[in-house]
Structures are given as C-alpha cells and as structure tokens.
C-alpha cells in the first residue's frame, strides 16, 4: 500500500516542486500539464529507441525545459497574456505529441518498444527495515528517492539562496526587486524554466514506469500538481504531504477499478473531480482561517 503510493506520488511531487518556483515568482503556470506531456513523449521515444534511461531522461528534461524557456521568453518579452500562451503550450503538446507519434512510430495509439530499458529496484539499507514506513524505502525505483531528495533541495534553493530570495520577491514585492536592480522578468523566466525541467523529469518518470508512451499519458497530473502547490501552502513540505494524499486517492480509484465495480472510462474523470473537491474544501478552510489566496 505505502509502497504503491510512493510510486504514484513521484510524478505529482516533482512537477509540483517545479511549479512551486513559478508560483512563488508570481506566475500561475497552467502549462505544467503540457510540459509534462512533452517530457513523457520525449523520454519514451528516446529511451525506447536508444535503450538508454539516462539518454531518455536527458532528452526529456532538455525538451521540456526548452519548451518552458521559449514559452516564458515569448510571453514575458512580448507581454502576451501568460494564461493564454500557457493554454497554447498545453494544446501544442497535445497535438504535437500525436503528430510526432504518427510521424516517427506510425501510430497515434500506444507506442510500445521492443526493448524498453527497465528500472532497477532499489532498497535503502537500514531505512527499509523500519517498522510501518519501511515499505516506502524498499524496492522502489530510483526516481522515488530522487523525488524525495528534491523536496529539501527545493526548500534550500527557495529559502536559503539569493536566487530563491529573488524568486520570492518577484512574486511578493516586485518593486523591491526592481529597486535592487534585479529584473523580475529574468527571474520569472528562470522560474518557468525550472518548472519545465521538473516537468520533463516528472513526465519521464511516468513514461519509464509504463515502459511505453500512451496518448494523453499525463491525464491531468499537471493540473493536480498545480492544485497541490496551493493545497500545500506553497511550501515543499506541504506539497509532499498533498502529493501523498492525492496518490492515495488515485490508488483507491485503481482499487475500485480492480474490484470491477467502476468502468475504466469513468475513472479518467476521478482525478479531476477529487482535485476540484479538494480545492474547494481548501479554499473554504483557508477562508475560515482568514488566509488569503493570490489574485
């Protein structure tokens, strides 16, 4: 149970940690979904044809990071509405991956590869012996541990470095940043690029777990990651907790499908619905606590 949740939560967690930087920099990045999809396709295509996990990973991070950088640079420099351009990224990823899939692999359906490199299962010594939580540390793919390592990394980068300070200032008090002679545009560009790199990694993890590319493989995970940032109070630790909860919900949904009561087509609606409900509950609760959200 815990072991499965750890596997499911990793893509949410990594994408949300990346999105945290844009959120803190004052940009609501609704392109996470598209960035993830591009990462997933690139990872599957490269790893599947070259047989190299590392190659697929590098290509995915590069493709998604580059997309994010172009998206950021064009929207911020041409002062386009960033929600609209983010929608463009999502739509482009949806159509683009399908067209590329047809061009390279002659199918718009599931792309399978003869020899997709497998992921090694790693158990951490000592930690895997712990009672109750030991499952979290035994027999997981390496990316699960990378995801957890990224939580303190993101916290350090955001709260303990000058760059992190600039990111937070870009979202909190742009004028102060301007007075210090730092361009908030350049900080936001960097933050969006970071989110792209994280989404590339996150999408790659999705593709590696399946060992194939499935159309719309992300199925809303980018949006869930975005909501997880809010629900985690825009803190890495909070995001970790919320990702865990969402992964638990998804596991229950999969269980329902396994029990044969719920048709699989209806299950596609479930993550969106549960995220919607989670978001509403969160805003009611935080409203009652007197906290205010952005915008």
């Amino acid at each position: 149970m815990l072991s499965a949740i750890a596997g499911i939560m990793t893509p949410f967690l990594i994408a949300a940690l990346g999105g945290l930087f844009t959120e803190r920099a004052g940009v609501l990045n609704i392109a996470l979904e598209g960035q993830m999809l591009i990462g997933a396709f690139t990872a599957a295509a490269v790893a599947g044809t070259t047989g190299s996990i590392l190659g697929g990973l590098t290509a995915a991070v590069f493709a998604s990071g580059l997309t994010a950088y172009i998206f950021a640079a064009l929207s911020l420099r041409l002062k386009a509405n960033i929600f609209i351009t983010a929608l463009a990224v999502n739509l482009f990823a949806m159509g683009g991956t399908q067209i590329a899939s047809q061009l390279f692999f002659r199918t718009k359906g599931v792309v399978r590869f003869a020899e997709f490199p497998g992921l090694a299962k790693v158990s951490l010594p000592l930690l895997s012996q712990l009672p109750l939580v030991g499952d979290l540390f035994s027999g997981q793919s390496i990316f699960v541990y990378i995801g957890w390592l990224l939580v303190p990394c993101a916290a350090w980068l955001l709260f303990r470095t000058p760059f992190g300070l600039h990111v937070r200032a870009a979202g909190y008090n742009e004028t102060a940043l301007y007075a210090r002679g730092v361009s908030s545009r350049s900080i936001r560009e960097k933050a969006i690029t970071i989110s792209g790199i994280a989404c590339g990694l996150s999408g790659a993890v999705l593709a590696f777990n399946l060992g194939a590319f499935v159309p719309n493989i992300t199925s809303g995970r980018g949006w869930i990651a975005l909501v997880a940032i809010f629900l985690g109070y825009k803190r890495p630790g909070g995001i970790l907790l919320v990702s865990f909860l969402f992964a638990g919900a998804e596991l229950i949904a999969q269980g329902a499908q396994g029990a044969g009561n719920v048709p699989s087509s209806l299950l596609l609606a479930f993550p969106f619905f549960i995220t919607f409900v989670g978001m509403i509950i969160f805003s009611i609760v935080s409203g009652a606590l007197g906290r205010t959200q952005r915008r």
Partner: protein
Amino acid sequence: MHSTRPASTFLSIGVAILAALLLLAAMVPFISETPLNTLRQFLTGPFSNRFYFGNYLNRTGLYILAGLAMVISFQGGMFNLGGEGQVYGGALATTLVLLMVPRFGALPGILLGTAAGIFTGAVMSGLSGFFKMKWNTDELISSFLLSSSIVYTIDYLVSGPLRDTQRFLLSTPEIAEQFRFPVLLNPSHLNAGFLVTLLLVVLAQRFLYHTSAGYELRITGLNREFAKYGGIPVRRYYLIPMALSGAFYGLTGSFYIMGTGYATIQGCTFGMGWNGIAIALIARTSPWLVPPAALVFAFLEYGAETAIMHSDFSSEFGTILQAVVLFFVTARFVKLRTKKGEL
C-alpha cells in the same frame, strides 16, 4: 482587458493568423504528394461548393456562440476555462430532455431543449463563479477541473449507459425529427440556428454596452477597486459573468444538437471551448468583432480539414492551429507601456 492601442492590436492579430497560415503551408509538403493542389484546396475549399460552404458557415455560427461566451467572461474580468465541458454538458442535457419528450410539438420542445442546455452550462460555470465569490477559489483552475471531470463522465455515459446500440458510433439515440432546426442550404448542415446566433451577437452587444448590468460588468472587469468605489456590488460580478459565459457555451451545445449533430456523439464538441477563447481574443473581446473573428478562425480550420482530409492528421491539426493562434494573439510586437492586468 480592452486594448486602446489599435496598431499593436492589429499587428498581433495579423501575426497570429499569418503564423497559423505559414504553419499550415509548411505542413503541406509532409502530408501531401501534390502540395500545390492541396494548398489550393486549403484556400478555396470552404467555397468550392454548396455543401462545403454551408458547413463552413454552420461551424462559424457555433464558433460565434463560443466566442461570445468568452467575450462576456473576459469583459467581466473572469477566466472561464471550462468551455469544453460546458458545451458538451449543454449538448447532452438538450439531447436527454428532447429524448424524454418525443411527442412534444416543435416549438415547446425546442424551447425546452434550449433551456436545458443553457441551464446546464450556466450552472457548471456559475459554480466556479460562486466559489470565487464565496471563498476566493481560483475560477480558472476550478472551472477547468470541473469541466474535465464532466467531459470524461459524459464520454463514459455516451459509450455505456446512454449508448444507442443500433448505431455504429459511440452515441446517444437521435432526437425526434420535429426538434431539428430547418436547413437553410441543402445539402449542408447550415440551419436556422445561424440566424438566431446573429441575433444573439446584437443582444450581447446591447447587453454589454447599453444596459446598466452590462456597464457594471465591464467596469468591474476593467478595475474591481474602481467599480467598488463607484458603488457597484462587485462581489456578484464574480458570479454573473461566469454564469452568462457558461450559458452561452451551453447554448452552443444545444444548437449543435438541434442543428447539426441530432445526437450526443462521443467527442462531438471537441475543441469548441478552446476555440471560443481564441475567437474572443482575435475579436479583442468585442461582440461586433466576434463574427468576423469566427469566420477567419473557422476558415483556417475548415480549410485545413478539407485540404488534408485524406491524411492522418486532421484532428491534431485543429489543436495545433488553436495553439499557434493563442500563442501570438495577445503578444505585443510594438514595444509599448502596458497597464497591469490588461489582456
């Protein structure tokens, strides 16, 4: 959200459309062995005969409704990102209501079906507005999430419990003959709904610019603080633009069912929600400019479809087209100082 700088505005719209055209032209050699012929088909396709021309206008009509939905949302300073689900929901509601009353006369049935579509869209979108008003829930995300869950639920209903097993498509049964809008141009799908749509453009313009509610909606959308000091009850203008926008999207679904599809087919409304956003932005959120914007957008899309009908890419092409237009349509190519919060 209203641009006061025509030069930059028209430049960005021009670049958006030009970029879309160039992209399509650049794709042609990949998908066709006779590129020049394909290109010619692309440019003249919609006008080549009555069937194509009528269907082109028919699609334009639906896009006008979707565009108006987003115009109202943007004018009220709200972002309704749930158009896909609202169109689909409106279509299904209309279908179900009309299937329940097969013996009704034409007019009461059509009115009932339309009301069902409008109501469904308005409630779906209005919910997001309500949550924004009550608890400050981001309407952009909540409308998208709700709409997506509805889209998948309807996909399931249409392929399962509500499916007409007599048909090959994943589809509900068809609505009765008397509820179908009269066709204006045989053999195409162009129907009387198109005329009603044009009337609605005028009504939307009258509402936004010649009624006090429309004025309050626009002022609140332009500057919420200013509107508040002007004594406008700004809180309700979280809900009103969202509900109205959803109503127009729901109506799009209704008109699609009664004029074009006659049944809810899986994925039948794909893209209309996104197209509404693109069209409202090309029209610079002005109701008068929505019909020409819809004509241009539908031309790009329809031309591409007729030209590449025999290739493998027809549906993805529409998506890429939306992406390209959205990418450039709000860009500012002339360096000008811009106000915060302006589209």
